[in-house]
């Protein structure tokens, strides 16, 4: 089963959505009140200069309850998970965690998932890892595989079916 089928399984998604919504509301009530909009998070944000992400505004919008607007925006996908905002916030607010919850919500709501995320998930579903073993090239353009380098077999789930069953459940529903 691919992710496209997974995300269209409406019933499971409803439970997952409710759960993430609870998480967001909790973040809204417990965290966003502490934020005094000092913008220290934005001043150090790795995605700010390049892609105009403003984590302090994300917190402000959450506080105003504009969750749908945030979930639908592209900007939530520009965070590069550097965790500087979480580390440096004087009020222990963690904009990066709000962003993770918002992206989780976008995925659970069946929004188009950007870039290679779907491919990574599909790969985890089939072999347990985000990508399979690659052939690489050396500086002088010779190709090398793991065994050329004396490396042992890669560790992967032994019983693929059992592993897939658990992950598939997680992708579609509350367990």
């Amino acid at each position, binding site marked *: 089963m691919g992710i496209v089928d997974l995300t269209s399984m409406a019933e499971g998604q409803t439970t997952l959505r409710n759960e993430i919504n609870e998480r967001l509301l909790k973040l809204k009530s417990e965290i966003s009140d502490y934020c005094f909009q000092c913008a220290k998070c934005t001043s150090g944000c790795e995605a700010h200069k390049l892609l105009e992400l403003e984590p302090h505004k994300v917190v402000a919008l959450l506080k105003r309850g504009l969750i749908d607007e945030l979930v639908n925006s592209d900007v939530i996908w520009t965070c590069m998970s550097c965790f500087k905002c979480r580390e440096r916030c004087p009020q222990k607010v963690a904009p990066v965690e709000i962003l993770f919850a918002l992206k989780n919500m976008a995925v659970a709501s069946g929004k188009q998932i950007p870039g290679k*995320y779907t491919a990574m998930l599909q790969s985890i579903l089939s072999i347990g*890892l985000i990508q399979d073993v690659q052939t690489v090239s*050396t500086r002088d353009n010779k190709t090398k595989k793991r065994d050329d380098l004396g490396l042992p077999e890669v560790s992967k*789930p032994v019983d693929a079916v059992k592993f897939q069953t*658990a992950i598939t459940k997680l992708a579609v529903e509350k367990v």
Partner: protein
Amino acid sequence: MTKYAFYPGCVMPTEQYAYEVSIREVLPLLNIDLVDVEGFSCCGEPMKSMNQLMTLYLSARNLALAEKQNLDLFVPCPMCHLSLSECQRVMESNTEMRDRVNSMLASEDLQYNGSIDVVHTVNLLHDHIGTEEIKKHVKKSLSGLKIATHYGCHLIRPSEVGRPVDSENPQKMETILKVLGAEPMDYPEKLDCCGAMLSANHPESALTKTGQKLQKVQEQGFDVFVDVCPWCHRMFDSKQVKAGETVAVKLEIPVMYLTQLLGLALGVKKEKLGLELNLSPVDKLKLGDK
């Protein structure tokens, strides 16, 4: 010999072979015995944007597998290390979640008990083996080598989760490198991100982050840039030429894994350290040429 179970993750064992080759070559020289374990999967961190419960589940699953070995877990990737550490924190503090995850793990006959530690390359070398011990094994001083270090965001932040190195002034790699005779030096961009996490959906911007950092490192005349993360190394070494194009600069900075440079200092032949796999111009260094 001290035994550790070896958790390779995804990126290192499927692509960043230089890290794995040098780890397997160097750590036994420092009396570390790595035990390979069957059945591991992705740590889940790359899935955090899609489904955080999946991240937690995958980490718990790997920790539960390692527990069966009754050994602490050596985790060379900072992303995996963060994911596994965060999982431990959640499982310790939230019994409801712990029960829920354990009930899911039961389908693979696994259970999380929280009985082991996770250790990254930097704290394995600095805290567990220790610089005094490393010093005893140095065969070839790296004297005169001016080094810029890069720890990787996930190794140093968020400190609330418990990271192996200080978040604002990480110095453990510097301490190790000084013992090897080298001259590591701080630089203003030391804590800047490599951008790798944007590769999935903003590949150009990801490369720009890499290019901007390396450009500054090059301007400051460092001899070599040292990292300890397969995601970061993929950006700084494997994609250095492309990263240079995004900032319109010809980048020619040797980039090495800490374990490769350490190997050279311990007298290991460069053929055994995977140095032919570094795509950055490491030949410029004229090290280990005997």
